[in-house]
C-alpha cells in the first residue's frame, strides 16, 4: 500500500537515485523527473521491481522555467513530498572567464530550483499539506576562491529555502534544507576527498528520510560538517581572504 508520492527533481544524480530508493523502500510511489526522461527507464523498472511500488517518469528541464507550471500540471498527482537534487558545479576557472558558463551554473543551481520549489510550495499551500526538501551545499555557507560561482548560487538557494520555510511554517508545510558536505558521486569522481568527511549517497538519502520524519529544518549529513562550517564561518574576513582553503 502506498505511503504517498515523492517527486524527485534531478533523478539522474547519484544522490537522487539513492533518495528514490530510500523512499521507495519505505513504500512511497515515485515520480522521477529529469531531462531526457526516456533514459530513466532502467531506474524506473529497477525501483518498481525492488520495492513493489508505482514509478512514473517525467521530462523536466530546470532551466526552462516557463515550462515548470505545465510540468506540475502534467504530473499524475500532486506529490506529498518533493526532493530537489539539482545543481551544477561546473568548472570554477571556466566560470571565472566565461560569462555563459557562470550563468548556467547560477541558473541551474539557484534560479531553476528556486522557481520550481516556489511553484510547488504554492500548490502545496492551496492543498494545505506537503513537504519540500532542497539539497543545497556547505559551499553556500561562505564564498571561497575555489568554487564561489557555484557557492554563491547555493548560498542563494539556501537563503531561498530558509525564507520559504519561514513563510510556510505557519501554513503546515515543511521545508528541509540539506547541506551534505562531500559526497562520493560522479560529480566528485576523481577528486581526492578525505574519507571521514565524505558521505555515500545512501547516507545522504537516509539523512533526508529521517530528517523529514523528525521535522528537522537544516541537516548536515555528517555532523562534523557543522563544526567545520562553524569554524570556517567564524574566521575574520581579513584573515580568510588570504587563506587558501
Amino acid at each position, binding site marked *: 500500500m502506498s505511503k504517498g508520492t515523492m517527486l524527485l527533481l534531478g533523478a539522474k544524480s*547519484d544522490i537522487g537515485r539513492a533518495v528514490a530508493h530510500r523512499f521507495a523502500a519505505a513504500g512511497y510511489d515515485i515520480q522521477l523527473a529529469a531531462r531526457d526522461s526516456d533514459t530513466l527507464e*532502467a*531506474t524506473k*523498472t*529497477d525501483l518498481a*521491481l*525492488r*520495492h*513493489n511500488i508505482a514509478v512514473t517518469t517525467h521530462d523536466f528541464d530546470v532551466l526552462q522555467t516557463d515550462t515548470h507550471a505545465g510540468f506540475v500540471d502534467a504530473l499524475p498527482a500532486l506529490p506529498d513530498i518533493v526532493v530537489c537534487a539539482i545543481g551544477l558545479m561546473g568548472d570554477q576557472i571556466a566560470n571565472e572567464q566565461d560569462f555563459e558558463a557562470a550563468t548556467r551554473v547560477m541558473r541551474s543551481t539557484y534560479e531553476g530550483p528556486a522557481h520550481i520549489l516556489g511553484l510547488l510550495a504554492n500548490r502545496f499551500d492551496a492543498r494545505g499539506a506537503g513537504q519540500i526538501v532542497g539539497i543545497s551545499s556547505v559551499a553556500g555557507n561562505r564564498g571561497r576562491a575555489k568554487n564561489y560561482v557555484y557557492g554563491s548560487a547555493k548560498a542563494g538557494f539556501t537563503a531561498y529555502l530558509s525564507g520559504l520555510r519561514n513563510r510556510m511554517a505557519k501554513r503546515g508545510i515543511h521545508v528541509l534544507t540539506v547541506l551534505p558536505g562531500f559526497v562520493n558521486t*560522479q560529480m566528485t*569522481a576523481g577528486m581526492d576527498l578525505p574519507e571521514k568527511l565524505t558521505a555515500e549517497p545512501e547516507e545522504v538519502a537516509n539523512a533526508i528520510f529521517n530528517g523529514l520524519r523528525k521535522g528537522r529544518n537544516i541537516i548536515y549529513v555528517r555532523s562534523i560538517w557543522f563544526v567545520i562550517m562553524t569554524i570556517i564561518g567564524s574566521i575574520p574576513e581579513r584573515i580568510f581572504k588570504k587563506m587558501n582553503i
Partner: protein
Amino acid sequence: MTDLSGWGGFPSHPATLANPVTQADLARAIADGAVIARGNGRAYGDSAIGLRKTVQMHGLNHMISFDRQSGFLVAEAGVLLRDVITAFLPHGWFPPVTPGTKFVTLGGMIAADVHGKNHHKDGSFRNFVDWLDVMDASGVVHHCNRTQNAQLFEWTIGGMGLTGVILRAGIRLRPVPSAWIRQTSQALPNLDAVITAFEGADAATYSVAWIDCVSRGASLGRSILMLGEHATPDELSDDAARYPFEIPDKTKRTVPFSMPFSLLNSLSVRAFNGLYYWNGRRNAGISFVDYDTYFYPLDAILGWNKIYGRRGFMQFQCVLPLETARDGLRALLKTTSLAGAGSFLAVLKRFGPQDSAFSFPMLGYTLALDFPATPGMIALMRKLDQITLDHQGRFYLAKDSRMAPDTLHASDPRAAQFKQMRQEFGATDAFQSKQSERLFL
C-alpha cells in the same frame, strides 16, 4: 591508489579503482587491459584485485525484469543477493542456491559458481543461470547460453571473471512456501558417524555440518549436522503462519552465537569449539529458524572478518572425491588438530555430481577451515594442500589467497584448458587478477 584486499583482509595490494555506472563507462574502464571486475569483495583472497585496475561493479546494479509466475529474474551483475531476497521473498521466491553470505553480487556468484547447503541435490548456481551477457576486452557484449556462444557461457561460470566482465544474467529463482526453515540438528561423535549420517541424508534439501576441528583421537571430527527444509505455513506458529514471508526484526533477533572472546588464540578456539559442540548436542532436534539465521548466521555479526585482527585470515577449502573422502578428511583434520591450529569455523558438506567447465564442486566432500594469516599457518596450509593432492582433491579459488601455482595445476588438469580458452576468448591479457597472476592462469 588505495589498499585493497578480499574478505580475509589478506593479502592487501595497492589498487586503482574504476566505478562504472553505464556500459560505456565499463568499456572505457577495461580498455587498457589487465583488469578484473569486483562485486562486493567477499572472495577471501586476491580473486577480485585487478593487476592494473579493479573495476567495481556496484554501479551496474539494475534489476531488469521479473516474472512472478515463473520466478525468472533478469538483473545486472552488481545486484546484491540480499536485494534479490528483499524484493522477491515476499512474493514466494528465493535464491535457488545461496552461499553463506547474502552480501555477494550476482556477478560474483556466477564468477565463483557458488554452491550452497543444497549442492548434493541441486548442484551449483550454474544450474539456475539461463543466460549471460559478457563484455569482452574490446567492449563488445556477447549474449551467451547453453547453445549460443556455449563455450563462453560454460567457461565464464566459475571462471573468476577471467573470461570477460559479466554484465547481466537471466536466472531462475525457486518457489518457497515461507521464509522459514525446519531445521533438524544432530550431534555426531566422530568423523565416521558424520559421514554415515550425510550419506543417509541425501533426501534432505539442505545439509551441512559444523566440525569441531580441535578434538582428537576417538572424537576426531565430531560434528553437529544440520538438515533443513523450507517450512510450510501450517508447520509455523500462528503469528508466523499469518505472514509466512516476514521474519522478526533483525534488532530483536538474538545473534546465533555470541562472541565470548576478545582474542582468538588456541585456547579460545578450543573453548569455542567445545562449547559449540555441547550446545549443539543439547539443542539437537527440530527447530524452526528464519532464513536469515539459517543461511546467513555470520551476516548478523557485521564485520566478523575483523575478529582475526589486522593481520587478516585465510580460508582453506578443498573437495575430495567420495572414494578418498574418509581417509582424506581424517588426514586433514588430524594435521590441523595436531598443529594446535584449530580453525574457528570448520564446515563439512557433501557435494552431489557436478558437470561444468571450471567450477570448484565435484561429487564428494568439501571441508572449509580458516586460519590467521601467519607464516606458521601458511606452512600448515601447504601440508593440507599436499594431503588434498594425495587424495585427488581440488581447491576453491574464491577462498584461496596463497596457493602455489603448481598445487593448482597438479590438482586440476582443467586449469590448463581454462588457460587455453582464455587465449581463444582474447581474455588472457585483458582480464587479470592478482590471483590469476599468482596461479599462472
